[in-house]
């Protein structure tokens, strides 16, 4: 069980794009910059002409940690928490989990690709190493 976000008009695309297999990041239609966390204004050019855009879901591990402590009784450990720098959304980094491999098989610079885990109405973007 994961804590889930309260969906609102700004974050809904990010948290539900996985229903369509898409990782959606707020994007500026004027300067082509990305805005994350999502806001109704572009942090690069202050344009309000922004909307969520599907990106490839490919990324690189910026850094990571192996979490060993169970922060609540039902938490299964160890698992990897990583910052993933999205390859085609410059400057956007997403905290996520690296799944599908041993925790010891994760390193900075590893290429990863998004997969989604559904819980209720939320599609949580997780990442697997690109083989």
């Amino acid at each position: 069980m994961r804590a889930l976000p309260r969906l609102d008009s700004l974050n809904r695309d990010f948290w539900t794009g996985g229903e369509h297999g898409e990782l959606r990041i707020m994007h500026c239609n004027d300067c082509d910059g990305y805005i994350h966390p999502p806001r109704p204004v572009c942090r690069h050019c202050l344009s309000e002409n922004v909307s969520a855009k599907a990106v490839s879901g490919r990324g690189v591990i910026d850094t990571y940690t192996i979490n060993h402590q169970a922060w609540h009784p039902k938490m299964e450990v160890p698992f990897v928490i990583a910052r993933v720098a999205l390859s085609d959304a410059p400057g956007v980094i997403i905290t996520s989990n690296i799944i599908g491999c041993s925790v010891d098989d994760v390193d900075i610079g590893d290429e990863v690709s998004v997969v989604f885990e559904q819980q209720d109405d939320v599609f949580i973007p997780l990442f697997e190493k690109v083989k």
Partner: protein
Amino acid sequence: MTMRNEAFITGIGQSEIGRKLARHPLLLTVDAVKEALAEAGLSIEQIDGVSTYPGRVPQMLGFSPVGSDELIDALGIKAKWYAGGGEISSQLGAIVAAASAVRTGQARHVICYRTVYEAGAMANPAEYPMMRRDRVDGNSQWTAPFNALSAATWVAQYAMRHVKKYGLTREQLAQIALTDRANALLNPRALVREPLSMDEYLSARMVSDPLCLYDCDRHSDASTVLIVSAGDAIDEVRCTPVRIAAMAGSVDRHSWDQAEWMASYATGRDLWQRTDYTPADVDTVQLYDGFSFLALTWLEGLGFCEVGEGGKFIEGGSRIALDGELPLNTFGGQIAAGRLHGFGFAHEAVVQLRGLGGERQINGDPKVAIATSGGGPLATALLLARDA
């Protein structure tokens, strides 16, 4: 230099530090206030300002149980200026705010405090309930769904970069905790007063790699007070005033994961641009260590060593020991003295500059000290000097 427009730390005070203390957190705050007033020779009637971080937090009362308006009311303070909130560049931002107030004539003597009751609250959930929401929002939504539920996991990721990029070793990082624990043995108020060996550190269980159990501070119950006084009110004060020689604070991306680098670096750089002092003038550093790695980044950010050289700088521990060239966290830091949440570092800097450290007093005649808080996405640094 004209002292009229300067801000000074005058009286300082601290309650008992413990876990699951029976004493009400407002009374812990009063204990610390009384000690600070007595040291300064001030009466409560002379106090005309109050500043705190982060103000009363109803959904997490143990984290911050006493609001500034409650303290003002409880003590009968006639406040001309007050402030309390979490949207500031970390805990010591409350001191920066008070210094700004006295320098602009809005107050003469400001009580600055941080009260924590995190251990007590867990033991008494009926009176200190944790309000849990069904769903997370704000910055938490970008970490909590991935079970990155503790700041330990956020700081650990920065620390891992140092491990991979600069070769930081566990033996090097251990020196923060070992130094803290050694110093706490000489601090009667410290929470943990047992020595820690390198073997014990290296065999401790991992919390979030590379941070182990001993790299983390422990919830505690305590209150810390510093009185910030205006330069033109300093002759009302009995204790040796400590001048706030420079202040700096910054915030990068508050959501942590978007912050490219830690705020301790920008803050440290800015501090030296606001003073004629240099790192070579500093006699002791009291650096935020809610997680040990934060103190290491402060050493780098403040320019005591190059970025990435922090591990080598503290290797072996002699340089940062009580009798070393740059004594660190002489009261035990948060790791050993207890999670006083930022204010303990400023308190100890003043203790050392006044020569009141007792068994833990550093050698020589210290005149310049640094105290910091935060260091993740937000940070504050104070440069403190004793002129007389």
